[in-house]
C-alpha cells in the first residue's frame, strides 16, 4: 500500500507551504485591495471552505486567471484552478446579463456580423458606450474590437478550401472566435504560411467557442457543453491523423488544460495533438522537416509580449525562436508583465482601472523601446496594447506571412 510515499490533494492545495511567493507575483494584488491574493483565495481559502461553504469570498471574482501564481509556485500548487473551481462550486448566484453577453462570443459574433458596419459604428460611438457603461457596467473607456462583415469560415470555404487537397501533409485549424468574427486576416495569413510549408489546412467539423470567457463569467455548464462538443470534433481530426494547430494562445490553454482541470471533461485522447502554430512550425524547422526562406528586404524592430497564458504553456520560446530566425529582425523580449485585460475581465467596469494599472509598466516599456510594432500571440493582449499605447500589435503568424518569401519557401518545401 502506498503509505505516505506521496502526498496528494485536490489541485495540490495541501502541498502549499505558505511561502506566499504567488501573492508576490500576482498582478491583481498591488492594484486591487479587495482581492485577497492567490494564497488566501486559493489553498488557504480551500481549507476554510471545506469547513463551511460560507467562507467563500465573493472577491475571488477579481482573479484574472492569468496563472502567474501557478508559474511562480515552487510547490506545484494549482492555485488558479483552486480559485476558479471554488468560483464554480461555491457560487451563490447566476451570471449578470452583461457577463453572459460578453462571454457568448459565438452568439454575439453571429448576430453582429450581418450588421457589422452598424455594430462597429455603434460600439465605437461615445453615446452608445456611455449607455453600455451605465446600463451594463461595460466600461465606456474600453475600445471594442470591430466585427468583420465576412467570417473567416465563410471566406475559407469559398476561397481556400478547394486549394487544400493538393498538399501531402494535412492539418486542422482551430481558429477561434476572434479570427472568425473580428479579424479573418489572421486566419488567412495562417493558411498562407501553412500552404507555403506544404501543409493543407482543414476546418474542424464545426468548432465552437472554446468557452474561456464562460468559465470566468459564471457559465460553467455552457462552457462544459462547448468543451464536450469541441473534444468530439477534435477527436475526428485526430482520428484522421490531422494535428490540430491553433493561433490563439488562450484557446489552446483552455482546450488543453481548463477542459480537464476545471470542467472535468476528459481530453486525454486529443490533448497532445492540440498545438499552437509557433511550437508546431518551430519544431518542424528544428528537426529539418521544413525550411523557411525569408525576403531579403524585410526589416523590423519587434518587441515581443509573451501573453500570460503563453507563459503558463511555456511556449514563448517557440514564438520568440521563430521571430529570431528572421534575418532582418531586431528582436527584444518585453519584461514579463501582464497586459491587464485578461479577456473579458478588462471590459467590466469594476475591473477597468485595475486592468490599466496592471498593464502600465508594460505600456511604458513599449513606449520606451519604440518598436516598429509589438508581437503577441493573444488577441485580447492585442486590443489592450493597441488601445493603451500608440503601437500596433501583430501576430507572429502574420509577421511570418509578411517576412517569408512565399514562393521560395513553397519551392523549398516541395
Amino acid at each position, binding site marked *: 500500500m502506498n*503509505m*505516505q*510515499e*506521496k502526498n496528494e490533494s485536490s489541485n495540490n492545495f495541501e502541498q502549499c*507551504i505558505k*511561502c*506566499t*511567493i504567488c*501573492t*508576490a*507575483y500576482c498582478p491583481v*494584488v*498591488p492594484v486591487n*485591495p*479587495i*482581492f*485577497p*491574493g492567490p*494564497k*488566501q483565495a486559493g489553498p488557504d481559502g480551500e481549507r476554510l471552505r471545506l469547513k463551511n461553504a460560507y467562507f467563500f469570498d465573493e*472577491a475571488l471574482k477579481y482573479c484574472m486567471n492569468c496563472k502567474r501564481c*501557478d*508559474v*511562480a*509556485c*515552487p*510547490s*506545484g500548487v494549482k492555485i488558479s484552478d483552486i480559485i476558479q473551481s471554488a468560483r464554480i462550486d461555491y457560487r451563490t448566484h447566476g451570471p449578470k446579463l452583461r457577463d453572459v453577453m460578453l462571454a457568448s462570443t459565438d452568439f454575439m459574433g453571429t448576430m453582429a456580423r450581418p450588421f457589422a458596419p452598424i455594430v462597429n459604428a455603434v460600439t465605437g460611438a461615445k453615446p452608445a458606450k456611455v449607455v453600455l457603461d451605465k446600463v451594463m457596467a461595460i466600461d465606456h473607456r474600453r475600445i471594442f474590437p470591430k466585427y468583420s462583415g465576412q467570417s473567416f469560415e465563410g471566406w475559407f470555404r469559398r476561397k481556400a478550401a478547394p486549394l487544400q487537397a493538393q498538399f501531402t501533409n494535412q492539418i486542422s485549424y482551430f481558429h477561434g472566435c476572434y479570427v472568425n468574427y473580428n479579424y479573418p486576416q489572421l486566419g488567412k495569413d495562417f493558411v498562407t504560411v501553412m500552404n507555403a510549408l506544404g501543409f493543407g489546412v482543414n476546418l474542424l467539423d464545426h468548432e465552437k467557442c472554446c468557452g474561456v470567457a464562460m468559465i470566468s463569467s459564471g457559465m460553467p455548464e455552457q462552457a462544459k457543453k462547448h468543451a464536450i462538443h469541441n473534444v468530439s470534433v477534435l477527436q475526428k481530426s485526430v482520428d484522421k491523423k490531422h494535428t490540430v494547430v491553433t493561433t490563439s494562445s488562450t484557446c489552446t490553454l483552455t482546450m488543453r488544460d481548463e477542459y480537464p482541470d476545471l470542467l472535468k471533461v476528459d481530453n486525454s485522447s486529443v490533448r*497532445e495533438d492540440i498545438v499552437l502554430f509557433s*511550437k508546431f512550425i518551430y*519544431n518542424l524547422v*528544428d528537426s529539418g522537416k521544413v525550411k523557411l526562406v525569408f525576403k531579403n528586404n524585410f526589416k523590423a524592430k519587434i518587441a515581443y509580449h509573451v501573453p500570460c497564458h503563453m*507563459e*503558463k*504553456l*511555456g*511556449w514563448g*520560446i517557440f514564438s520568440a525562436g521563430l521571430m529570431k530566425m528572421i534575418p532582418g529582425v531586431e528582436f527584444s*523580449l518585453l519584461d*514579463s508583465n501582464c497586459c491587464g485585460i485578461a479577456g473579458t475581465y478588462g471590459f467590466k467596469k469594476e475591473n477597468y482601472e485595475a486592468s490599466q494599472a496592471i498593464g502600465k509598466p508594460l505600456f511604458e516599456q513599449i513606449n520606451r523601446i519604440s518598436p516598429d510594432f509589438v508581437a503577441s500571440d493573444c488577441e485580447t493582449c492585442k486590443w489592450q496594447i493597441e488601445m493603451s499605447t500608440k503601437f500596433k500589435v501583430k501576430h507572429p503568424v502574420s509577421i511570418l506571412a509578411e517576412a517569408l518569401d512565399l514562393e521560395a519557401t513553397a519551392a523549398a518545401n516541395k
Partner: protein
Amino acid sequence: MKFDTIIIGGGLSGLVCGISLQKGGRKCAIVSAGQNALNFSSGSFGFLSRLQDGTEVTEPLKAIPSLNEEHPYSKIGVEKVSRYAKNVKSFFSECGISLYGDDTKNSYMITPTGNVKNTWMAMDEICLFPSKDFKVGDKALIVNMQGYLDFNTQFIASSLENKGTACRIESVKLDSMERLRKNPSEMRAVNIARVMDNEQERTKFISTVKSLLADEDVIILPAVFGLKDKDDISKIKASLGIKTLFVGTMPPSIPGVRAQMLLKSAFEEAGGSFLIGDEAKNVALSDGRVNAIYTENLGNVALEADNFVLATGSFFSKGLVATPNRIYEPLFDLDVDFDEDRNNWYDPKFFNKQNYMGYGVITDSSLKAVKGGKSVDNLYVVGSVLSGMNSLYEYCGSGVSIISAMFVADSILGR
C-alpha cells in the same frame, strides 16, 4: 531543441552557472519549476559561518582545510574557492547587484528579529558590521508602516539598546496602506514594496519620516524599498540626510526578490533562455551520459545538450524528496547520502543542527553526479542539492551555490 548546456533549476546556483556559461559563449537554457529560495533570503550571502562541529568561523577561506573531504569546498579545493570568492563582487556587480563585505572575513548583520547573524556579504541596502559588538549610533529612530506586522520594531529596538543605542519607535499611517487593507489580506513585504515603488507614495512616506526626526543620529527602516529600481535606496538616504540603515523583514525579502529578478535578466540579456514555470519530468540516459530531458510544458520535445547541470535545490524546491523511509533525488534518481534510520534525521530541539539538512546528492571530486556508484560523465551538480555540507547549520548555502556554480561552469568551458 538543442543547447550547449541545460541547467535544471533557476535559483542562485543555476543562474550563476548559466550567466558564467553565457559569458563564456555557450548557449544555455535554464528550466525552472517556480520561483526559488532567493526570494526568502536574508539579504546576505553566507559563505561559512560555522565549522561542522559548531565552532564559529571568522575567516572562512582559512577555515576550509578544517572541513572534511566530502564538503563541496574541499572537493573544489581551497585555492580555487579563494579565487572564485574574490570574483564574487564583480560578478554580481555586472548583474546590477552590489555586494558589501570582505571576501576573506565574515561580518555581522542585524536580522529581522534583532539577532546578530554571522554572514559574509550583504546585498545593496542591507548593512554589515565588522564585529559583533557594533553600535549603530547614539540615538536611533525606528520607523515602520502602521499595520505592518512583519517588521519587528520591538525586537530590533531591544537588540540595539543592548548594544548601547537608545531607540524610539514610530509608525507612519499611509493612505495607500489603508487602501491595501480594505479587506484584510496579507500585508507582506512585496505589497508594501510595490507601493513604495511609486514615487509619490515614497516621497510622502519619507517626508513623514523626516518630520518625525528629533535628535536621533540614525534612522532604521524596513527593507521594503527599491524593488523595481535600486536607485530609490540612495535617493532615500540622500533625502533623509542622516545615517539610514535598512533591516530585513519577515519573508519574502525585497533584496532577495530584486536579486532574483536581476540575475534572471542578466542571464536572458546574455542570451540565455529561461523556461519559467516548467518542471523537468523525464530524462534520457544511456552509457553513463545524459542525452536529453523532457519537461512538463514542452511535452515530447526533447531538450538536448552536451552537458547538464542539476541545480534543483533542497527540500524546499523539491530537489530532494523525503518519504517515511528514504530520501531521494526525483529526476535522475541519483545516489543520495542519507541515514537509513529516520530517527537520526531530526534533533528534537528545533534550533539545533538537523541532520536532514545535510543530506544531498553524492558527487565525485569534479562535482559530477553519481548514479549506482558510477559518475555520470556529463551531469554536474551545484548548489544546495549537494551532499557533504549542512547548509543551514554551517550557513554556507549561498557560498556553496555560487562557488560550485562558477567551478562547474569553468569545468564545462574547459578551464
